[in-house]
C-alpha cells in the first residue's frame, strides 16, 4: 500500500481542482453563449418562439441535473457520437447553465421600462440594434449579481460530473479516500477547496447586490 502524507492528499486534490475550475469556466462560457440564443427566443415577438424557449427552460429547471448528465452520457452515443466523460460533462452543464442564465437575463429584460424599446425605435434603430445597444447592456448590468450567484451554483454542480466518471475534485477525492480510509479529512479538505472557490464569488455577488440596492 502506498502511504499518503497529508501533503500528498492536499497536492492531489489541488491538482484535481484545476479540472473543476476548467469545467466551470467552459460550462459558464458555453452556457452564456447558448443562454443568449435561448434569451433571443424567449423575448422574441413570436408567441411560438417564446413558448419553445419557456418549455426549454422549464425542462432544465424541472429535472435533476444528474439525470440531464446521464441522458447526455448515454444518449449521445446512440446518435453515433463517441463520448468521453469530459464531453458529456461540458455539454450537460452547458445546457443546464443556458436555461438558468437565459431566465436570469430575461428577468433583466422584463425589468426595463417599455419606453426603452420605444426610445430606441424612435431613434431609427431596428430590433437587433435596440437589443444590442440599449436593452441587453442594461439587462446584463442589472442582473450581474444573480449571474455571479449562478456561477457559484455552477461550480458546486460540477461535483455531479464525478458520477458520470469525469476526473474532477470529487472523483479524485473518492479515489484518495479509498486508498487512505480517511474520509473525514479528505472530504473536509474537498469542502474547504470548494469553499475557497465559491466564497469570494458569493461575497462579490453580495456586494453587487448591495450596490444595486442603493
Amino acid at each position, binding site marked *: 500500500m502506498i502511504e499518503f502524507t497529508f501533503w500528498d492528499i492536499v497536492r492531489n486534490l489541488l491538482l484535481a481542482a484545476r479540472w473543476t475550475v476548467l469545467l466551470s469556466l467552459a460550462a459558464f462560457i458555453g452556457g452564456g453563449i447558448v443562454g443568449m440564443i435561448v434569451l433571443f427566443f424567449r423575448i422574441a415577438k413570436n408567441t411560438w418562439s417564446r413558448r419553445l424557449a419557456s418549455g426549454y427552460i422549464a425542462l432544465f429547471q*424541472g*429535472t435533476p441535473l444528474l439525470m440531464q448528465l446521464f441522458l447526455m452520457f448515454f444518449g449521445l452515443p446512440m446518435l453515433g457520437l463517441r463520448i468521453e466523460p469530459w464531453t458529456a460533462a461540458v455539454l450537460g452543464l452547458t445546457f443546464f447553465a443556458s436555461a438558468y442564465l437565459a431566465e436570469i437575463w430575461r428577468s433583466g429584460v422584463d425589468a426595463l421600462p417599455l419606453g426603452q424599446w420605444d426610445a430606441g425605435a424612435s431613434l431609427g434603430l431596428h430590433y437587433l440594434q435596440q437589443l444590442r445597444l440599449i436593452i441587453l447592456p442594461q439587462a446584463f448590468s442589472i442582473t450581474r449579481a444573480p449571474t455571479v450567484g449562478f456561477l457559484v451554483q455552477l461550480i458546486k454542480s460540477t461535483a455531479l460530473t464525478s458520477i458520470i466518471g469525469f476526473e474532477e475534485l470529487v472523483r479524485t477525492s473518492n479515489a484518495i479516500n479509498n486508498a487512505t480510509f480517511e474520509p473525514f479529512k479528505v472530504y473536509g479538505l*474537498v469542502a474547504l477547496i470548494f469553499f475557497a472557490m465559491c466564497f469570494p464569488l458569493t461575497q462579490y455577488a453580495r456586494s453587487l447586490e448591495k450596490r444595486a440596492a442603493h
Partner: protein
Amino acid sequence: MAFAWLPGAAGDIARGAATTILLIAVTTLAGTFLSILGAAGRRNGPVLLKRAIAWYVEIVRNTPFLVQLFFIFFGLPSLGIRLDPMLAAMLAMTLNMAAYTIEIVGAGLDAVPIGQTEAALSLGLRPRQVFIKIVLPQALTVIYPALTSQIVIMMLESAVVSQIAVRELTYEADMLQARTFRSFETYLVVTMVYLVLSMALRRLLVSGGRHVLGAGVS
C-alpha cells in the same frame, strides 16, 4: 429506442418515487422548522449563536451538496456517528435546505413592520406569543413563493442521495438500466417522472399555501 421493459419496471419506479417523496416531505418539515429556529436565533440570539449560524449558512451554501452528503455518510463514522443511508440522506438534505431557508425566513421576518411587534406587545402578549402568532405568519406569507422554489430545488437535488445507496428514484433507475441495458430510455423515463413530480409538488405547495396562509400566496 425500446420500451418493452417498461411495464415490468413500473413497480420499481413507483417505489423509488415514493421514497423520493418521503425524503422531500421529511426534509421540508424538518428544514422549515430548523430554519425558523435559525432565523430567529440569528436575529435575537446571543452573539456567539449568531456567528455560528452565519458560518453554518456560509459553509453549506458554498460547498456542493454531494460533498456534504459524503462528509456526513463517510466522514462522521470516524467520529463515532454511524448513520444508515436513509438517515444520512435526510440529515444532509435537511441541513442543506435549512442553510438556504434560514436566509429566506430571515428576509421574511425583516419584512414584517416593527409596528406589528409593538402593537402586539402593547396588547400584553408575551414575546414568544408575538413571534409565533403575529410575526411568523406574516413572514411566512411573504416568503412562501421563495420557500416553494427551494423545496422543489431540494427535491431535484435529492437525486444525488442515490450515491450512498438510498433506494430512491435515481437509484432505481441505476438498477433498472443495469438490468435492461437500456440506459438512455430508462433515464429518459425517470427524468420525465421527476418533471411530473416537480410540477405536481409546486402545484400542491401553491394550493396548500393558499389554503393555509390565505389568498395572498402565489
